[in-house]
Structure formats: structure tokens, C-alpha cells
């Protein structure tokens, strides 16, 4: 080939120049095209290597996604503090029919009602004759029912899987966990408060509630309600140092699995939504307020011999001692007159500021939609100061009371109450002096050792508390003397409080065995005692020798003039 080119070149110089030029152009274009193609292929090869070898160190994206696929239940579980299931979602079959495929509606309906006994043959038959392609027959069947329906072999019946919210604990956690509607949306309780979290998350929601303690509280509360023919009640156990709710019961309650069937009374959460005038249990706050303000010391006292008359009211003691009483005696005998005088010395503004500091004037900080708004007097007159000193005229929820008592006894540190399990230290806000808290612990122990709360003295667990018996505000003006609200709030062990127990019974009636009394000391205190006795071993609180000298020293109250040992039943 080169020979002929040279031969031709030798023959004609002019031609040679033209040919050479053409060849050069051709060669250049060829090189250019080759370069472009090479670049293109190199780019593709590079991309292939990048995709297959470099990105994520593995080839396809599909298996990675599949490997992560865990069970999606549509709604996360709720578990108690020990991991026991409180609410979960299960896939359940729902039965529907395509009436077009049904051959003999009468026969099919009759056969079906032998298996699903809730259904009526005539209703089913009308549904099966409907001129549609889809009718629901029964939602959320059990696997056994599904098997039996399949065994009937009726054509035209089909199943569709649906997620159903199941509450294995039935009524036990009713007011804590709440319930959902048919579309799995939270309607009440924690289900509502954490609706977004539950709907997104796969990780279970850990509550602070301990099912075992919850059961004990519910059982003892129900027992007292039945014994005293009461209309309801609530029971609360709080961790005094973290603000965790260990148990929260409101009776009557309901089964969240069949939430549609309940009455408004069952749905009403007495522990957090109901606000009540709590009565003498408020003297814990009144005494703490006076001690903290420094207007009295444990050695001071007031003359409680004369009833106080203001406007059209007369404030008297129910079993008055009719003499000068020291502050510990005022607390022990639950003297209204003494409490009023203590509050008046602090003053209206001081009391209002103190109640605000304790969080008694605002709804609770609690993860529930059912939170009652306290009924606060407005304007706050001196008469209100007087009545609030013994727990009337300011209505709060039982949860407010329990959380306030936790603040009083735990060294004066206010922590938000929570329904979620917390770990580690909870930062709080100091609202009382530690010395006030210590004095209050002694006074609360005094009530149980030698006062109105003797029925709550669980041996070994150093219960300290305060009884309360409030007359409920009647229909019109004034108070109904016969409808009471009996409560007992306790802290144990009182020398180093770990837990707060509150039992409140709504409208107990006096019984023969209680000599006609339906007071906090008779109704609520025994329940608190049994709750403490049963729950303390589960909560890891060891009993102590109550006669040990160091414990006696810790709880000693120096009574300036310990006179008669008569008891007030209030």
C-alpha cells in the first residue's frame, strides 16, 4: 500500500499535495471521533464502577432496603415501666361479602349466623341482597372465627386484614392509656397525647406506670368504694423524687377494647380532669406556707377556742379542743380555726404567691389531654384566704395534690409530673426551704402516729400523711353535708420519702362498722395502709425498725404543750 502511494507521489507532485491534504483531514477527523468515543466510553465505565463498587460498598440498593424491613404495625406499642404490653396493634381479619357472587343469600345468612352469633340472619340477608359489590359483615374477627367462616365454604365471602388496637390489660390502665377510634387515631389518654409519636414510631413508648402497683391501687380503691357505697374515687402513686407516676387510677373505669360502650361517668378521669375542694389535706400546704414564710415555728401556736365569724360564715373545728393549740397540734387535730389564723398571718398575697409557686393555679404539666383547670377564686379576698387554708374555695385535681405533697416532702423541689419513664436525675425548681420540708415530714408522721391518720400506719414503712374530708359543694349555694370527699395523702418512708400515695373516695356513706363515719381517716387511710404494705416490697422499700433510736430522733416533734390526747376525727 505504501509502495503504490510512493509510486504515485513520484509521478505527480501536485496530485500528491491534494491527496496528502485529503488524507490528513481524514486522519484528523478519525482521531477526533475516536477520542470523543473513547471519552464517552470512559465516562460510562467510570460511572459503572462508581455505582457497582464504590457507592455504599455494595451493589444493589434493593436488598439493603429489604433487610431493614421490620414488622410495621401502623401504631407503636405502649409498655409499662417493666416492659409489659399495655397497648399493641394486631392484624385481624375483617369479613366482607361481594353480594354479586352470593348464590343463595338466605342460606348463606343462616349458615353464617351459626358461626358469628352476634349477627342477625335477617340483617345479613338484606346486606347480601344489596345491589353493591362490597358490604362489611363483621370487623375484626378472631382467628378461630375466621377458620370457622372459611369452613362454611360460602362463595362470595372475603377477608381483609386490618390493624386493630388491643389493650391486653383491659380496664386496668383505662384512664392512663386512653383509647383509639376505628381508624387508629388516639382519642383519649396517652394514645391521644402521643398520637404523632405512636403513629410514626416503631419503638415502644415506655410509661412510668408499674402495672403491679396500678393493680394494687385499683383493687384497694375499688374495695373501699364498695365498702362505703361510694360513687367513685381515684388513687395515685407518685415517685417523690422524679415526678414519675407509678400508678394512676380513676374509678369507675372502662375497658378500652370496647371503648364505645362506656358511660360519661366511666370516661371521666377523676384523677386529673376532676377538680375538687380537697379539704384538710390542703393544710399540708397551709402549714408549709406559714413555716416557709417564717410567720410561725413549730413551737408557736394559736388560740383555737373561739369559732371565727366572717360575713355569713362561721368557721369552727369539728372536734374542737377549745384551747390554745401549737402548730403541730393544729396539724394533728386538723384544726380549722388554727389553720385560718396561720393563713391570715401570711396574708392574702403571700398565700396566692405560694399557691402559684406550688403550681396549684395552673393545669398540671402531665402528658394527658384530660387535665382539669383549677377553680381559682377571683378576686382573691381575705375570706378566700381563710377557706383555702383548710382546703375549700380552691379546687384542684387529685394529681395536683399528690404532686404538691411530693414537692413539700422531697426537700421542697418542684418537678413536673410525668407519665413517661425517666432515667437519671430530674432537675427541679426549689420552691420551699429544705428545713420546711423536714418539719412537714415530722408533722405528717405525727398525724399517723397520734392523730387522724392512725389507720394508715403500715408497720415498718414509716407512713406519714394527712387526712381530708371535704363537703362537696351542693347543687345551689352552700355545701352538702352528706356528700363527702374523703381522702388521705401519704408519703413513705417519711424520713426519706420515696413515694407519695393518694387515695380519694367520692361520696362515701357512713357504715355501721365505721360508727357512721365516712371521713378520710376511716375511708381512705386503711386503703393507703394496705397499698403501702403490698407495694413497698415491689418498689424496693425495705421495712425499718420504727423504734430504732435514729429514726425516733429523725421524726421527733417537740410539742410545746402536749395536753389532752383527744382525737379529732377530721
Amino acid at each position, binding site marked *: 500500500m505504501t509502495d503504490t502511494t510512493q509510486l504515485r507521489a513520484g509521478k505527480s507532485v501536485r496530485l500528491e499535495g491534494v491527496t496528502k491534504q485529503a488524507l490528513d483531514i481524514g486522519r484528523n477527523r478519525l482521531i477526533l471521533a475516536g477520542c470523543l468515543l473513547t471519552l464517552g466510553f470512559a465516562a460510562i465505565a467510570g460511572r459503572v464502577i462508581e455505582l457497582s463498587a464504590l457507592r455504599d460498598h455494595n451493589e444493589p440498593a*434493593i*436488598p439493603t432496603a*429489604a*433487610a431493614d*424491613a*421490620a*414488622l410495621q*404495625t401502623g401504631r407503636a406499642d405502649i409498655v409499662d415501666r417493666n416492659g*409489659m*404490653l*399495655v397497648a*399493641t396493634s*394486631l*392484624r385481624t381479619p375483617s369479613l366482607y361479602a361481594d353480594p354479586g357472587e352470593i348464590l343463595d343469600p338466605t342460606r348463606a345468612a343462616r349458615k353464617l349466623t351459626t358461626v358469628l352469633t352476634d349477627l342477625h340472619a335477617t340483617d345479613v340477608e338484606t346486606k347480601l341482597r344489596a345491589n353493591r359489590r362490597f358490604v362489611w359483615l363483621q370487623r375484626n374477627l378472631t382467628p378461630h372465627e375466621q377458620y370457622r367462616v372459611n369452613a362454611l365454604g360460602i362463595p362470595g365471602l372475603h377477608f381483609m386484614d386490618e390493624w386493630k388496637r*388491643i389493650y*391486653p*390489660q*383491659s380496664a*386496668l390502665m383505662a384512664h392512663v392509656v386512653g383509647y383509639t377510634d376505628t381508624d387508629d387515631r388516639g382519642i383519649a389518654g396517652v394514645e391521644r397525647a402521643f398520637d404523632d409519636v405512636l403513629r410514626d414510631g416503631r419503638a415502644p413508648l415506655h410509661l412510668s406506670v408499674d*402495672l*403491679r402497683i*396500678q*393493680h*394494687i391501687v385499683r*383493687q384497694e380503691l375499688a374495695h373501699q368504694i364498695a365498702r362505703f357505697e361510694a360513687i367513685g374515687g381515684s388513687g395515685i402513686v407518685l415517685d417523690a423524687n422524679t415526678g414519675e407516676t407509678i400508678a394512676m387510677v380513676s374509678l369507675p373505669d372502662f375497658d378500652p377494647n370496647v371503648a364505645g360502650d362506656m358511660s360519661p361517668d366511666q370516661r371521666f378521669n377523676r384523677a386529673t380532669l376532676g377538680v375538687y375542694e380537697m379539704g384538710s389535706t390542703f393544710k399540708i400546704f397551709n402549714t408549709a406556707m406559714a413555716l416557709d414564710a417564717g410567720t410561725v415555728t413549730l413551737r408557736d401556736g394559736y388560740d383555737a377556742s373561739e369559732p371565727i365569724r366572717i360575713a355569713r360564715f362561721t368557721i369552727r373545728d369539728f372536734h374542737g379542743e377549745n384551747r390554745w393549740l401549737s402548730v403541730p397540734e393544729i396539724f394533728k387535730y386538723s384544726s380549722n380555726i388554727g389553720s385560718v389564723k396561720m393563713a391570715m398571718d401570711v396574708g392574702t398575697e403571700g398565700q396566692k404567691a405560694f399557691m402559684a409557686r406550688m403550681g396549684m393555679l395552673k393545669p398540671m404539666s402531665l402528658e394527658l389531654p384530660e387535665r382539669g383547670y383549677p377553680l381559682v377564686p377571683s378576686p382573691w379576698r381575705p375570706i378566700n384566704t381563710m377557706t383555702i387554708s383548710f382546703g375549700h374555695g380552691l379546687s384542684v385535681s387529685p394529681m395536683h395534690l399528690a404532686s404538691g405533697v411530693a414537692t413539700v416532702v422531697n426537700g421542697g423541689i418542684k418537678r413536673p409530673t410525668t407519665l413517661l419513664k425517666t432515667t437519671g436525675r430530674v432537675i427541679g425548681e426549689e420552691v420551699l426551704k429544705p428545713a420546711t420540708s423536714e418539719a412537714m415530714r415530722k408533722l405528717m408522721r405525727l398525724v399517723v402516729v397520734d392523730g387522724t391518720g392512725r389507720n394508715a400506719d*403500715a*408497720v*415498718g*414503712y414509716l407512713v406519714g400523711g394527712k387526712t381530708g374530708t371535704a363537703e362537696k359543694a351542693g347543687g345551689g349555694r352552700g355545701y352538702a353535708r352528706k356528700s363527702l370527699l374523703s381522702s388521705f395523702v401519704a408519703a413513705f418512708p417519711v424520713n426519706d420519702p420515696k413515694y407519695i400515695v393518694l387515695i380519694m373516695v367520692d361520696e362515701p356513706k357512713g357504715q355501721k362498722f365505721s360508727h357512721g363515719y365516712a371521713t378520710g381517716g376511716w375511708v381512705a387511710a386503711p386503703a393507703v395502709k394496705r397499698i403501702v*404494705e*403490698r407495694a413497698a*416490697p415491689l418498689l424496693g422499700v*425495705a*421495712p425499718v425498725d420504727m423504734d430504732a433510736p435514729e429514726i425516733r430522733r429523725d421524726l421527733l416533734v417537740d410539742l410545746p404543750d402536749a395536753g389532752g390526747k383527744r382525737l379529732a376525727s377530721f
Partner: protein
Amino acid sequence: MRRVTVLWFLIAACLGVALFLVKYEVQDREEKLAALHREILSNQEAVHVLEAEWSYLNRPSNLEAMVRRHLDLVPLDTTRLGQIERLPMRLPVLPGIDGMVPGVGEASLADASLPAFAPPPPLARPLTISAKVRQ
């Protein structure tokens, strides 16, 4: 030139066959993987159902009823709880009596009418276990 072309055709054919085989192998394995994932999911669902049932059967009220029916347990009261520090002192190890309970040997040496388990003399140091061990 002809030989080179044949060689290239051979290589292309081999690659084609290999690609075909690999493709089907991958497809097969992906199906297996998907089946495994389905199985894992159905197992997880079964576990989930069992957990719900476990919780249901472990309701405190249910447990309490069963304990009442089948066991002789009674509520724990404070008289049944104690502290390790309050246990009586440790029994002394008597020399000379091997493998025998102290007290028994002592009694057999003495009068037979005496109770077999005579109270042993206390040791100077009480038996204590530190708080850390107890937890």
C-alpha cells in the same frame, strides 16, 4: 485477521452465556431473599401476637386469681422481711468432728436426753454481707 475475528466472537459468546447464567443466579437468589424476608416478617408477626397474649395472660388480676386457686401464697407482711445484719451469729466450727453438723455431735457426746440441737456458743463476729453483695 480471520483468527482474531473468531477469537472475538468466541469471547463475546462466552461473556453472553456467563452474563445469562449470572443474571438467572441473581434472580434466583433475590427470590430466595424475598422469601426469607417474608418468613421473617410473618415470624415477627407471630411473635408479636404471642407477646400480646403473654401480656394478656400475665394481667396482675389473672395472676392473682391463679395464685389464689393453685398456690398457698399469702401477702408478704413486714414480719416476714428482715435484714441480713439481723441474722443470728454464725455457728462455730468445732474441731475433731468432721462432716457432722455441730451441735449434733456435741449432743451425742453428752446426755441423750438433751435436745439434739443445742444452741451453739456465739461467735465474736456477726455474719454480715455488704450492701453491694445483697443487690
